[in-house]
């Protein structure tokens, strides 16, 4: 069975949590006791209906304020597919939590309130979806019940959003008119939008093609840990433990270790304690090399015929996630997969204006939720690929050395 990870995004109150509640409810994935619990809490709602958003708004503060603050993960499956849903907050203050949920998503559902159309947060979340390279985008025009299921309203929103998609270079955009509240076009298609010919949301989620989302061309293996039992019978055992993040490795393959550039061949591959001839992404394995070369945590073992870049100066698109501003000259730790190096932000070449999607050149600093382009200098060489070519080896985080908090998300260019 296959696994699809998706996120719901969009502005505050556009109906993200309600949509997920509806999806779980209509696909019969909610247990009786959970339903009873939210029924009880929904009592103070005027209509006397259940508030499906309560299924994911799991924190007290969220229930009190009726908003989502942090990502909630929910799980359900249909006969063909398993789904991991991340319900993101729409509020601008919690954008970094949305980024957290979006970073692992194969698909993003961007909700738009049919009454309001495309608003600033729609654009901000679309920018993040495009920066993160989420492979599939669904634009769900929600609350169609509030606009009499009007095709004109829907079409106008499509036209507006198509501009956003075009300027951000978003591909694979699918549009669906829905009412999360009433369940229209969520699991079943509704007869209220006969003018809409596409699939229901769930049907789309079940059928969207995922085969191409794992890169099997560029072989990358970041070393996480070196296994050396040093017992009598395993005296010479030295295994490099890690996850193949992309590509395929075979016994006998010629490999190069980065950043050192030393070469060797693969002597053996272990998967779950058993030797195998080959292994592929995203399997966690242990690699053994034929030569006694120096390999440690944070190094990348790649096939020698197709190698990552190794540089000390990185051009990045950066999403700033800290309350303290980012000022050129600031120093951080940069972590890419299992490698941490010290780094300094050299200069900010531009900042993206969320409303116009235009670039503002040479800003003085970046503040919370800004998206900028910057140059980062690292203390030692880093092996990476361009994020746009290989997501799994092109993303890095910045860590504040004093607070230890993750403050930036970098997409290396």
């Amino acid at each position: 069975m296959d696994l699809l990870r998706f996120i719901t995004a969009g502005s505050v109150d556009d109906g993200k949590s309600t949509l997920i509640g509806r999806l779980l409810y209509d696909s019969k994935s909610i247990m009786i006791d959970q339903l009873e619990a939210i029924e009880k809490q929904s009592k103070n709602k005027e209509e006397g209906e259940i508030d499906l958003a309560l299924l994911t708004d799991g924190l007290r503060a969220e229930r009190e304020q009726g908003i989502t603050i942090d990502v909630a993960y929910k799980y359900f499956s249909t006969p063909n597919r398993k789904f991991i849903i991340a319900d993101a907050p729409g509020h601008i203050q919690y954008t970094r939590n949305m980024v957290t949920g979006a970073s692992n998503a194969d698909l993003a559902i961007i909700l738009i309130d049919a009454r309001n159309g495309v608003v600033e947060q729609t654009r901000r979340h679309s920018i993040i979806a495009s920066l993160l390279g989420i492979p599939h985008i669904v634009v769900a025009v929600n609350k169609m019940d509030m606009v009499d299921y009007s095709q004109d309203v829907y079409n106008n929103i499509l036209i507006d959003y198509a501009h956003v998609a075009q300027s951000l270079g978003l591909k694979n955009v699918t549009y669906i008119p829905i009412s999360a509240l009433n369940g229209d076009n969520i699991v079943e298609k509704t007869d209220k939008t006969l003018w809409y010919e596409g699939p229901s949301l769930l049907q789309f989620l079940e059928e969207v093609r995922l085969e191409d989302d794992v890169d099997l061309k560029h072989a990358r293996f970041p070393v996480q840990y070196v296994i050396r039992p040093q017992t009598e019978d395993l005296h010479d055992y030295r295994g490099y433990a890690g996850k193949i993040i992309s590509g395929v490795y075979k016994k006998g393959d010629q490999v190069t270790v980065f950043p050192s550039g030393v070469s060797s061949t693969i002597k053996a591959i272990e998967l779950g304690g058993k030797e195998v001839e080959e292994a592929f992404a995203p399997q966690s394995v242990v690699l053994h090399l034929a030569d006694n070369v120096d390999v440690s945590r944070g190094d990348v073992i790649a096939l020698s015929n197709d190698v990552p870049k190794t540089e000390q100066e990185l051009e990045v698109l950066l999403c700033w996630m800290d309350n303290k501003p980012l000022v050129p000259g600031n120093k951080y730790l940069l972590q890419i997969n299992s490698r941490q190096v010290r780094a300094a932000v050299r200069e900010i070449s531009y900042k993206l204006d969320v409303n116009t999607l235009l670039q503002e050149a040479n800003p003085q600093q970046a503040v919370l939720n800004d998206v900028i382009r910057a140059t980062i200098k690292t203390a030692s060489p880093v092996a990476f690929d361009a994020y746009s070519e290989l997501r799994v080896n092109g993303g890095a985080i910045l860590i504040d050395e004093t607070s230890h908090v993750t403050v930036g998300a970098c997409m290396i260019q």
Partner: protein
Amino acid sequence: MPRLDYLDQLESEAIHIFREVAGQFERPALLFSGGKDSITLVHLALKAFRPGKFPFPLVHIDTGHNFPEALQFRDALAAEIGEKLIVRNVEDTIKARNLTEPKGKFASRNALQTYTLLDTIEEFKFDACIGGARRDEEKARAKERIFSVRDEFGQWDPKRQRPELWNIFNGRIHKGENVRVFPISNWTELDIWNYIRREKIALPSIYFAHDRKVIEHEGQLVAVSDFIQLEDKDVVHTKQVRYRTVGDMTCTAAVESSADSLDDIIREITATKTSERGETRIDDKVSEAAMEDRKKNGYF
């Protein structure tokens, strides 16, 4: 090349998390309860680190109210895999710290075990504690990061969680803080059972149908034991039951069932209309935010 099956994807993700702990922390520990989730963690750790030793001990916070079958299983498993097991008793903490034991029919030490946990973390200077919590269990858990930073008092601050991007885990902390790590965050109850079946993982016998003396309490079946106080109105029945989760005898309810194989259990879990927690936990119904509050106080 095929796309990896979902169980293989989850397994690989968990192994990756284990190895990040090994690579990033000085003194990690694996919190082991003897339940199916922590047994699954041990199995995943074997896959992550064999033929090497675990880079952490197994740690059990023993409330003194455990099922004897789970304790036997714990000791046998630790001996079989040859890894270090540390046990710390809530009983000792109660004496040493003069804590007040909760009273009542199902007096549970669930809340008190946080004291023992925090003392144990301090005693061994653990900087990371790996646990088997899953996000599908409970709505506050559904919100927690895989690397969840806790302050000196073990407290979780849900409003100040660090961003956690891609599969990059930031385990940097200040002295005195620790990280709770949840490798099976993204597994559901059914995933765990399917994995146990696929990998032929052994479980304590109480997970399978057996006869047991129970009383009924608000629709739930509670085992008769030294740890609960029977009232005159209680009627003791012998019923065929199994456990869906294994916690304390005081706060875990049994499920009436004749499922004595993994196939049967999986069939029942697939068809069930009640959540794991809803069916088996006696303590969680107290308040809407019970779990959130416990986590804020240092609980797992």
